[in-house]
């Protein structure tokens, strides 16, 4: 799953570094993720993992790192 998240970040995150080189817990906002780009990341994640992030998850913290994105998807997948 981590690889797929990295691939989505690479395609849609418009961040300043290659996600392959980012640690799982690295701060994506410090890597240049904007709130606008994060929407595209969310859309791609919803499509790829066939989940819908409920509104309570749509906040900065949840999309702050690769690890927190994985935790959110795992929670939704149950």
């Amino acid at each position, binding site marked *: 799953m981590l690889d797929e998240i990295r691939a989505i970040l690479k395609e849609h995150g418009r961040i300043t570094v290659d996600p392959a080189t980012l640690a799982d817990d690295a701060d994506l906002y410090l890597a240049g993720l904007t709130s606008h780009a994060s929407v595209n990341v969310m859309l791609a994640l919803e499509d790829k993992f066939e989940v819908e992030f409920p*509104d309570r998850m749509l906040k900065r913290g949840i999309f702050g790192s690769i690890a927190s994105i994985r935790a959110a998807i795992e929670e939704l997948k149950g």
Partner: protein
Amino acid sequence: MANPQTSSTSAAARIGLEIAAPNSTSVDREARFPREAIDALKAERLLSAYVPPELGGGGLGMIELSQLCEILAQHCSSTAMVFAMHQIQVACIARHGLGSPFFKRYLTDLVEKQYLIASVTSEAGVGGEMRTSVCAVEHQGDRFKLDKDATTISYGAHADDLLVTARRAPEAAPSDQSLVLLSKAEYSLEQNGAWDTLGMRGTCSPPFKLRSSGSSERILSVPFAEIASNTMVPFSHILWASCWLGIATAAVSKARSFVRMQARSKPGTTPPTAIRLAEVSGTLQMMRANVHDVAEECEKLMAQPDAGADVLSSMSFALKMNNLKVATSQVLVDIVQRCLLICGIMGYKNDSKVSIGQHLRDGLSAALMVGNDRIYATNASMLLVLKED
């Protein structure tokens, strides 16, 4: 014991009526800083209204600040907007800086000296996109250097301190920003343009080239991203909207007095303009409900143990804050224009008691004070993933 809330609102009402109102025409005509009213607000220690009581401040919340802005704006829009913008800066420091002895001391000093803080977010090349900076903080040991090409600094020439956004470091991404408090002794502003505008003329907001240095403790340690969503945006949109509500209220109050005057001259008949007054009074009520509702919700959130961080940083709350800004900025112009139609030629004249011109000119700034389309674009993008209302 005196109730600090009622004493603040009555002080603002007195300052509005006795000091801001009589100067408002010259402030507008000459595009001059509303010095008398701001000095009076300082004398009442209202520039520290939001500073926590532990540090000697007024300890007011969002609802009271909103009321103060609304009251002042009924008398002088520029006084109210300067007051609002200052409180936004104080709130950023008070809600995100108290972990630092430096910022604690600063706020204690602000209570005593009633410093006025201006905001430097806009920058040449990025316009109103607050969450992007070109300039960067350059660290040199335990000091920093910061230069910024600022497009609009309200009361820049009259402020004691500046709160400035910049990239965290020269290598940081455009959205990876810090917020830095600059003190007058350590910055220079070179004005490179005029502020001869349609309205909001007394805010005195020309472009400046800013050069500064200072000790690193002046940089807030919390990332600006968090300060923006949790404090700067909610305070900006609510306090701006409160100023706009005050402007709308002033215009409607003129329309009311015009209609009463017409009614008195022909007792027994209802003037035809009374229907339009009834209509605009309902619109004003809707605007007021919107502002008060969001201010109350925000105050409740901010009183929670996490200071509202969880909800304030959510997309659904950002959408609501943005909706408040766009809706009130639009309805303001609508209300003022309808008041102009009610007052007719007496409203169109600049020298009549029910003159509407300045309200209209001031009101037109609301949609560009961060362009509404920019905000709509953000909301449009958030609505692609938000599911519920």
